[in-house]
């Protein structure tokens, strides 16, 4: 599958870079032109990703499937260390890639009037961030994965640090160091896997390929430490309790679009990392850690909700609600049942939609009033009915009203967890989140939208303009779509969820039994036809 002769995954990933280069060529000060280029790039980025889903089942694509991945690109990259340029997506990555391209576009569109200083740099960083995030969801070579993982960190640091609020430097550094700490430990684990592989299969077969690593039989103590290392990186990113305190600061200080991307996509890298890497690579360790992970998830759900309830700052409230929602997501994933994982992944998407929208909702009044304190508002429904409608829909989506997207995810997570008899109690505890969620979100809505509109500044606020409405329309459509026809989306998660579950059921012994003996090294993967001349890996 190619677009203009470029493999489609490359096209999707690097299209933002083209826009970036064009923006760099525009002289400083031509702000409108820069905005237009960025918006068009964002929109094109979204359009280019649509064929991914349209052609998903076309014979040309399914015929070239490898390891359950589609649109595979596999070319040699750094021969000396065995790193290859490997891209490929399965259903889980597909949904996350689509979410990223959509939210990227929406976030860029929502920045139009919010960003007034250093416009050029702002959009450059936004587009760079976009490429970094997409790469993370597509890379299947650990070296490549790590490169993208770090690439997306830098633009986010600048987005918070330059265009952020009052405590932007503190927040930016906290965000950066926190994430970096996790990723460095993860890098160590990746290197451990790398050398382990070399120790088994020899230096000439050196590789960073995720699929090769999967074939290794890993002994329990290695799994234990490697799982912990990956856990630190991903748990910080999710974030899971008690690694979550960078999140409220980063969210509160980040510009609106930064918060949207942060909540909508960046946090999903943690959850994605667990599903994609931690669980299949270290099934035994995951199972051993499951009770502890469940405890952390439940603490996240309840703790996040209770803390959210008492926040005075709207953005901080939404940020803590993220902690709660992601606790839910991780619960489903760690339950390691098919619908638990499906529910978890669909909840990642739901969270991206509803929380992304909620951050934009906060951003809209912030742009008009320059305050995020709940007490400063009240009675906005009188003068902003369209805003009120959208806010209400997204509130309902966030608290999991059936008919909208949140319910599907929550229910599947709960059912997926509940079906495992040992995990029932966690499902029951987590379900209390539906009460708390309603309490803090509806209270927020009431305090901001209901009551008398007493402040003169609030009375003068304008309702949404057409551009602002446009940023919400796709999110609302998706919220309803996932709520009413979830099967359309769940279909893509069937096979990958099943694969993870089956992988989790393997023990150390059966993994080694699957492995081809060291005497016969695994055949070097033939590069995809689309990816240039066939060069052997070694």
């Amino acid at each position, binding site marked *: 599958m190619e677009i203009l002769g470029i493999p489609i995954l490359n096209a999707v990933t690097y299209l933002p870079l083209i826009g970036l280069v064009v923006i760099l060529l525009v002289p400083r000060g031509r702000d409108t032109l820069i905005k237009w280029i960025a918006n068009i790039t964002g929109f094109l980025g979204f359009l280019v990703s649509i064929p991914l889903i349209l052609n998903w089942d076309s014979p040309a694509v399914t015929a070239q499937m490898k390891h359950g991945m589609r649109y595979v690109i596999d070319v040699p990259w750094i021969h000396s260390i065995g790193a290859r340029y490997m891209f490929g997506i399965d259903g889980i990555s597909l949904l996350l890639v689509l979410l990223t391209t959509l939210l990227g576009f929406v976030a860029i569109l929502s920045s139009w009037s919010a960003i007034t200083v250093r416009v050029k740099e702002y959009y450059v960083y936004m587009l760079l961030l976009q490429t970094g995030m997409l790469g993370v969801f597509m890379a299947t070579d650990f070296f490549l994965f790590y490169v993208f993982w770090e690439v997306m960190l830098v633009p986010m640091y600048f987005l918070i640090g330059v265009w952020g609020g009052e405590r932007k430097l503190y927040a930016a550094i906290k965000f950066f160091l926190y994430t970096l700490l996790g990723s460095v430990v993860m890098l160590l684990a990746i290197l451990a896997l790398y050398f382990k592989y070399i120790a088994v299969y020899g230096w000439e077969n050196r590789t960073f390929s995720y699929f090769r690593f999967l074939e290794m039989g890993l002994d329990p103590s290695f799994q234990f430490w490697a799982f912990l290392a990956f856990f630190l990186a991903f748990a910080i990113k999710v974030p899971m309790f008690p690694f979550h305190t960078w999140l409220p600061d980063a969210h509160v200080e980040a510009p609106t679009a930064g918060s949207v991307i942060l909540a909508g996509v960046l946090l999903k890298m943690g959850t994605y990392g667990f599903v994609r890497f931690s669980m299949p690579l270290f099934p035994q360790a995951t199972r051993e850690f499951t009770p502890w992970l469940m405890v952390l998830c439940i603490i996240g759900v309840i703790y996040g909700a209770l803390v959210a309830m008492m926040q005075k700052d709207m953005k901080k409230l939404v940020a803590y609600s993220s902690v709660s929602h992601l606790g839910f997501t991780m619960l489903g994933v760690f339950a390691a049942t098919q619908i638990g994982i499906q529910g978890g992944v669909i909840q990642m998407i739901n969270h991206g939609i509803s929380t992304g929208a909620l951050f934009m909702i906060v951003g809209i009044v912030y742009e008009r009033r320059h305050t995020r304190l709940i007490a400063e508002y009240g009675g906005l429904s009188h003068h902003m009915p369209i805003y009120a*409608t959208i806010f209400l829909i997204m509130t309902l989506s966030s608290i999991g009203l059936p008919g909208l997207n949140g319910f599907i995810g929550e229910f599947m997570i709960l059912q997926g967890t509940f079906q495992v008899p040992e995990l029932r109690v966690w499902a029951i505890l987590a*379900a209390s989140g539906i009460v708390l969620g309603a309490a803090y979100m509806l209270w927020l809505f009431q305090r901001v939208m209901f009551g008398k509109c007493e402040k003169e500044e609030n009375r003068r606020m304008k309702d949404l303009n057409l551009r602002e409405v446009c940023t919400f329309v796709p999110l609302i459509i998706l919220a309803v779509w996932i709520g009413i026809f979830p099967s359309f989306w769940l279909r893509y998660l069937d096979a990958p969820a099943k694969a993870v579950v089956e992988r989790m059921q393997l023990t150390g012994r059966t993994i080694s039994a699957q492995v081809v003996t060291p005497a016969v090294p695994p055949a070097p993967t033939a590069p995809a036809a689309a990816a240039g001349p066939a060069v052997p890996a070694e």
Partner: protein
Amino acid sequence: MNGPIPYLWLIPLLPLAGFAINGLYGLITQRVRERKPNRYLVATLACGLVLAAFVLGLAACYELAQLPAEERSVEQLVFHWIQGGDVATTGYGAGAVAPGTVPFQVEWAILLDPLSAVMLLVVTGVGLLIHVFAIGYMWADTGFYRFFSYMNLFMFAMLVLVLGNNYLMMFLGWEGVGFCSYALIGFYFHKQSAGDAGKKAFVVNRVGDYGFIVGVLLLFATFGTFNYGRLAGLVKDLPAEAHFGILSAITLLFFIGACGKSAQIPLYVWLPDAMEGPTPVSALIHAATMVTAGVYMVTRSNFLFTRAPVSLELVGFVGVTTALAAALMALFQRDIKRVLAYSTVSQLGYMFAALGAAAFAAGIMHLMTHAFFKALLFLGAGSIIHALHHEQDLQHMGNLRRHMPLTFATMLMAYLAICGIFPFSGFFSKDEILWRSFASGHYVFYGIGLAAAGLTAFYMTRLMVLTFFSTERITPEAKHHLHESPAVMTVPLVVLAVLSVVGGWIGLPAWLGANTFEHWLEPVFRYAIRPEAPHFSHGFEFAMAMGSVAVAAIGIGLAYLVYQRRGVVPDQEMTWGRLWQALYHKFYIDELYDALIIRPCKGLGNLLAAFDLSVIDGFVNGTAAATRGSATVSGWFDKYVVDGLVNLQAWIVQNVSGVLRRLQTGVAPNYALAIVLGIVILSCLYIFR
């Protein structure tokens, strides 16, 4: 679409279309084109679509009735809602229901059977009348279109609730009506109390839903299906649980949900506050339809509840307790709508009492007659409130029968019905419940129910006397507005009045004729386990019925003496001391919940937020500070120790060289002297060695 009644799927969809069209039209007209939405258009569409749903419903029920009794269960698959991966189920009993692996599939399918047919007609029929009434009631309101779009959305959700063929669809409707209730209670959102009441309703309902959803999880994890029919098929040969088992757990959890939605103890607290909503909302949602969802749910799950005797007893116990407690709370309320609200809670208690005695048909019959007369009472109250320009305090009413004869006449019918006077509808349904409680051996329940019936007669008479008789205490401002309501409001009152009178005649007691209603519902309960009722003579049953009428008469007489003869008005009641205080303040339950649940929750939230800031972030910032500190130390070390060493070397070299430099004077005689001295010294060493 498929099936013998192909248009079933349209019935819920029609009001949904009304919601979407009116909502968008109103929003766009009002904000973008800055004009007022055309009220005629909005009202016609909203009511027209509900009318269409009602007519289709009638046709469907007619077709259903044409089928032979055992085939009266028509399912229609509309689409597959959720299709996920496999779920392992545990099975039930010792292999009675085998464990296995089933795909997680939820259908969007409609089920029309005698039970959902009754609900369908009540919801669309009463709903239609209230929609029409609301045209008049809400005409002057700026949120006219918003009101009707939410009302239509409510109709959609309620229809999904009663027409779905599985528990997840029921849950969708369940939460949907809950949301509409939230939105409509908070309709006058500029009032702080309205917003509070809406939020309270939703959150308290969510507490119930928590139970419901865990029950559904357990149900699916055990049986592997949400579908009523398939479930009934799985359990139909099972005996009742002797001890507390999985079925008891499931039904108990379901009942928690029912308590939330149908305002039973301990979750009833939201309903009286819900009266903040416009009166047609109170009539439709908080009296006739939504609050009866719990009754519907238990009845629908009859095959589960009758196999869990523990739960069923609890249902009955909670029912009668609520019936009595709420009747007590209703006694001295001053707000006309609050009296009716507590009355609703109490009447719902009756319905649950019926279910507790496994008299499901009696419960549903009371649900239906209650929908007629309570909707009428609320609409009548609305008509009064409308006429008195939003006066709701009974203190400022009185003698209204002269000014509003039609409202009076219609409300009188509803009043007689709720008091249980023969031959009004309420008599048949309420008496059937009391009789069934007695006949099934629940004598305590019967006694409490009878007492509550007396209280009901008392507070309803008080309400009628204080509004329509007694002395005229209307404020001059309200008096200026006083008028009988327009026809668009009174016609629905008349229709409901007729129904309040004749509604009970389809379910006559045995001493009077045949209970057609029970016979109609019978196929729904074919998988229930019901104890054989002991046989009593018709004469005895008749005597019991007359007994309950007599109790009602005592209540009426007492209230008449106090409020009409002695002319007591609400202001005078305040001097009645502790008893009045406790009843007027509803036994201080709200205050208790606030102190025991809400405040601790908020306190915990604050505590955890502080923990987050001080402990966790304290640790993070502490790490940062420690890093900075150690950096400072190593900086100092670098500067003074490491660099110090380097500099020391340089210093030594410099100083030593400074000394040595003096040797290199560059003056030839010095060198010559040094050479000579050297030769002398070396020579001496050589010679004196």
